[in-house]
C-alpha cells in the first residue's frame, strides 16, 4: 500500500445510504429556506443544503475511487464561506437601513 493510501476498512454502508441521507438533509434545508421569514434563518437553511451537496460529493469520491470529489468539496466550502460573509453583511446593511430582518417586510422594490 503506497504512502497516503488508506485501508478500505469495513465500511458496510452502501452508496445509496449516504445519498438518501444527503437528499433528506437537502429537503429539510429547502423546507427551511421557503418557510423561514427571518433572513438569517434562510441563510441557515442554505447552509444545510450546501452541506448535503458536500456529503454527496465525498460519497461519490469514496465509492468511485476518485479523490477529485474531495477537491470539489474544498471549493464548495470556500464558496460557502464567501456566500455567508457577503450574505450576513447584506443582512446587517439592510437592518441598518430598515430596522428589520424579516424577509416579508423587505419590499422596497415592490411596485
Amino acid at each position: 500500500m503506497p504512502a497516503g493510501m488508506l485501508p478500505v476498512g469495513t465500511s458496510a454502508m452502501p452508496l445509496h445510504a449516504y445519498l438518501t441521507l444527503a437528499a433528506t438533509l437537502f429537503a429539510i434545508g429547502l423546507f427551511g429556506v421557503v418557510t423561514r421569514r427571518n433572513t438569517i434563518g434562510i441563510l441557515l437553511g442554505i447552509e444545510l443544503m450546501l452541506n448535503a451537496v458536500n456529503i454527496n460529493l465525498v460519497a461519490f469520491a469514496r465509492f468511485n475511487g476518485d479523490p477529485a470529489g474531495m477537491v470539489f468539496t474544498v471549493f464548495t466550502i470556500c464558496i460557502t464561506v464567501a456566500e455567508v460573509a457577503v450574505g450576513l453583511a447584506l443582512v446587517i446593511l439592510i437592518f441598518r437601513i430598515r430596522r428589520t430582518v424579516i424577509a416579508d417586510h423587505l419590499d422596497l422594490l415592490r411596485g
Partner: protein
Amino acid sequence: MGSVIAFWILAALVVGSAVGLVVRRNPIHGALFLVVNLGGVAALYLMMHAEFLAAAQVIVYAGAIAVLFVFAIMVLIPGKEETGPDPLRAQRWLAVPLGGFLALEIALVLRSTVFTTSRSPATVPGGVEAVGRLLFTDYLFPFEVTSFLLLAALIGVMALTKRKAS
C-alpha cells in the same frame, strides 16, 4: 457492524439537528443546531476516510461560519419577530403534494440500478497529501479562481459594511 451502528447514530444526529434548526423560531438556537449538524457531517466524512475534509469542516464551518452567524444574530437581536399571520397561507396546500412528489421522485431515482449495484468503497486517498496534490496540479486554475473569489468577497464585505463618513 460497528460502522453501521455509527452511521445510523450519526444520521439520526444530523437529521435531528437539521429538523431542530428548521423548526425552532429562535435564530440563536438555529445557529447552535447548525454547529451540531456540521459536527455530525464532519464525523460522516471521517467514516468515509476523508480526514482532510473533516478537519476543514470543523475549522471552517463549526469554527468560522458558526461564530459569524452567532455574531450577526447578537448584533441584530431578531428574537421575537417571526410572529403574526402567514401571508402566504394558501400556498401550504400546494406545498404538501409537491413535497411528497419530490420525495417520491428522489426515492425512485435512488432505487435505480446506478446506485443500488453493490459497489464496494474503493481505496481512495483522503488525506492532505492526495487532496493537495490534485489541488495544485489538475485543479490549479479553479484553485486560483476560488482564491480570487475569496478576495473579492473580503473587499466586498468591507465596502458594504463601511459607514459613510458624512
